[in-house]
């Protein structure tokens, strides 16, 4: 179905383009004027009028279809069956699944099959209408465009205006995405804070989404959502990662920028960057299968409480992942320090390492700080390594050999499988997402600012 529509639209586009172009090329007798634009632009003009309106109609329909049909079917459901309006959305989802030919878990009796059949019928009917409207729009647009194709008409200007609008729209997708993230997170998070007090979330020290610990809570049995243990776990794992990554990455960057021969630089730098290209799920597997047992043995050897999913295993592997971020960003920063500063230092008799430590590092420090902050934000938002190698149970501890959980682990594990959007458990995920977004956003903004300021300083 989709394929047929795509092919039809492409075919229509091609035919109308050929027609418009042909018309401009033909220059019928009795029309002495030259066409204003190149023939192709008349082709594009005809194509735009014939293709864009129906495609917009189709997109509009695809967006509106679920809610329109839903309204109609819901009336029928409420009339036919004993469905209370609170569960109507769940039932609707199942109706849709039945209509698509999927199986549903709950049993509603035979009535629902009829509703599903009606739903299907309505869908097909509506779709046929939409296709008819699309065809009419295409025809109308084409006839209009045809009447405009005369020598005086400035087709290029019109087409270029449309292209410009399309480019502006593309550029605005970045803004739309950010707005979508903020709005969807905010919206669901506000629903969550209606069920659960904001300050208990931010400053609570117990995270147990399953258990009912507080009987006085609205809708008891919903669990306790105190984010502090998650934030502490995130901070601990990120800190371990930074302790691993910053010295290694920074020393590697210094060596590559200041000591390495061009040949060594051109081999070692790409190899280090391979570390950044490896999917995080691979690091997660490596952490869970190979590194975690290592630290577990080490922990029991020095006799401190350990857990198979220790924070340190996840942290160290995450550190390895982050090395190339630190090294390549710092490398750029060090290279940006003007040669004259090095020359000045050498002229005073400093050795190379003294120059690096006493002259280059202070000069490059802001840039390196920016790199470290960017890497930290990457560590905080990293999901797969911690999902696979860190624990699931919130645990407020300072021992890195024990299991801790992180914000991202909870987001990933609470949403997979369970999809009822009225429980505090599911909604809490969006509150966590908002928290994560804000934290990483602040880190990124500071880091980008520092890096930009630093760059301007030496340009």
């Amino acid at each position, binding site marked *: 179905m989709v394929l047929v529509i795509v092919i039809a639209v492409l075919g229509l586009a091609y035919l109308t383009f050929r027609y418009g172009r042909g018309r401009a090329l033909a220059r019928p007798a009795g029309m002495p004027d030259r066409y204003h634009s190149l023939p192709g632009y008349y082709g594009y003009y005809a194509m735009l009028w014939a293709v864009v309106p129906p495609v917009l109609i189709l997109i509009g329909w695809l967006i509106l279809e679920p809610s329109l049909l839903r309204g109609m079917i819901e009336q029928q459901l409420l009339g036919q069956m004993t469905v209370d309006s609170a569960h109507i959305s769940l039932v609707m989802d199942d109706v849709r699944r039945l209509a698509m030919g999927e199986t549903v878990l709950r049993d509603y009796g035979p009535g629902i099959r009829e509703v599903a059949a009606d739903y299907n019928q309505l869908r097909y009917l509506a779709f046929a209408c939409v296709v008819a409207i699309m065809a009419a729009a295409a025809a109308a647009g084409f006839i209009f465009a045809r009447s405009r194709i005369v020598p005086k008409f400035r087709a290029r200007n019109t087409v270029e205006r449309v292209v410009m609008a399309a480019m502006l729209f593309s*550029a605005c997708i970045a803004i739309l995405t950010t707005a979508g993230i903020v709005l969807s997170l905010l919206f669901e998070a506000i629903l969550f804070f209606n069920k659960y007090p904001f300050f208990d979330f931010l400053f609570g020290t117990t995270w147990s989404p399953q258990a009912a610990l507080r009987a006085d809570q609205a809708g008891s049995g919903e669990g306790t959502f105190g984010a502090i243990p998650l934030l502490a776990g995130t901070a601990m794992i990120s800190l371990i990662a930074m302790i691993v990554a910053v010295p290694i990455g920074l020393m590697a960057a210094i060596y590559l920028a200041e000591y390495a021969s061009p040949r060594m630089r051109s081999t070692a730098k790409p190899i280090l960057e391979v570390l950044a290209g490896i999917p995080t799920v691979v690091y997660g597997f490596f952490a869970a299968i190979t590194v975690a047992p290592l630290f577990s043995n080490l922990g029991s050897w020095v006799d401190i409480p350990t857990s198979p999913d220790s924070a340190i295993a996840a942290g160290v592997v995450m550190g390895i992942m982050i090395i190339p971020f630190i090294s390549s960003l710092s490398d750029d920063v060090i290279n940006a320090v003007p040669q004259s500063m090095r020359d000045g230092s050498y002229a005073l008799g400093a050795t190379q390492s003294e120059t690096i430590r006493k002259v280059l590092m202070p000069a490059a420090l802001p840039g390196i700080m920016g790199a470290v902050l960017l890497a930290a934000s990457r560590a905080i938002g990293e999901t797969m390594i911690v999902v696979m190698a860190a624990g699931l149970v919130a645990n407020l501890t300072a021992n890195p050999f024990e299991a801790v959980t992180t914000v991202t682990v909870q987001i990933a594990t609470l949403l997979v499988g369970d999809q009822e959007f009225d429980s505090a458990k599911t909604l809490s995920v969006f509150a966590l997402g908002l928290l994560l977004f804000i934290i990483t956003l602040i880190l990124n903004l500071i880091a980008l600012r520092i890096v930009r300021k630093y760059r301007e300083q030496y340009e």
Partner: protein
Amino acid sequence: MSEAALNLPTIADVSGSAAGQRRLRRRYAAERRFRLYGLAGIALGIAFLVVMLVNIVSTGWSAFLQTYIQVDVTFSQDLVDPSGANTAEALRQGDYFTLLRDSLKQTFPAVSGRSETRQLYALASVGAEHQLRNMVIADPSLVGTTQKVWLLASDDLDMFWKGYIDRDAPEDQRRVPDSQIALIDQLEARGAITSEFNWDFFSNADSREPEMAGIAAGVVGSFLTLLVTLLLSLPIGVATAIYLEEFAPKNWITDAIEVNINNLAAVPSIIFGLLGLAVFLNFFGLPRSAPLVGGMVLALMTLPTIIIASRAALKSVPPSIREAALGLGASRQQAMLHHVMPLALPGILTGTIIGMAQALGETAPLLMIGMVAFVAEVPDGITSPATALPVQVFMWAGSAEQAYQEKTSAAIMVLLVFLILMNAFAIWLRKKFERRW
């Protein structure tokens, strides 16, 4: 003023005196140490990479082999085709479960006792039943004959044969009991056990039985997802880059777009997953677990990469090209699309491929939109339930059975091969079309 009056050290003081020499030696030693730290940093980074890759290859290569056992199978009419219709439909209904068990018994007539017999049955995989069924349907003349057939071995036998299970471990600590080891030794003595290249791993979808599980569903799912990602992110990304680089007026909207793009590049991937869940699934009602939604989410994620790379590529085209076109009377869009864009295309494509490679390895946002479901069939469209290769890795990594561990490593190897190919293509593209102006 003379030097002596200032009390500055003379050259002789610094390098000639014993104290000066010592100081110099110390400074040179510090220099060497510092250099060594730098080298150690690089060496550690590379060592981590090598250890990880070696670790994965060493645990994963064996998944490309699969153990088979040779069994005498009598395709008796009573079991395979009791109705005697000899049609594919009738043959499909045959009792292959009993056929498999009878064949194993026939091959090892000496086995007796309840638990020993159960161990015997456990040698072959459930997949062997399907194998027998497919054999008969493909060649109905087999009915009534006795054949030596290589059957798919169970995962425990497979693990044992590949050496993952220690024969000398106490019996209660290994998954293969003594009686089964005795049977395996008999098979080995007869030459009736072998390892062959595991084609099923590439052609099967996921399965609850590790010996039958394959990556086909994940590979196809990843391909469909990336296709959607590419179709969305390449045109939008390039259009954005051209607009910002060439046409955008200097105003607050342009500034806002630029700030947004830089920020989006650093937003955690799981947040994009939440966006997909809240907007694409809940608001627009698009299907769960579908490559369509996965592709849309990944497209939003890769957009910043493509935009930044495309802008760099456009910027590197010298202004003289643009000016020459404008001078000959081209409009600004004509100059851009006909002259600058083609020259920037290799750079744009390189950035796009690198963005696609990132998208291929991405797992977390796909978990959020339900692409983590168990998918036993290869997806046939962008709206059917699917999984992706990295998600398949994640699901297998979480399986308790040891046999999935080698599958996980093998799937990672396949994933890395795809990534290497994509990046190599990007590097080749850059090398081939790189121009110095």
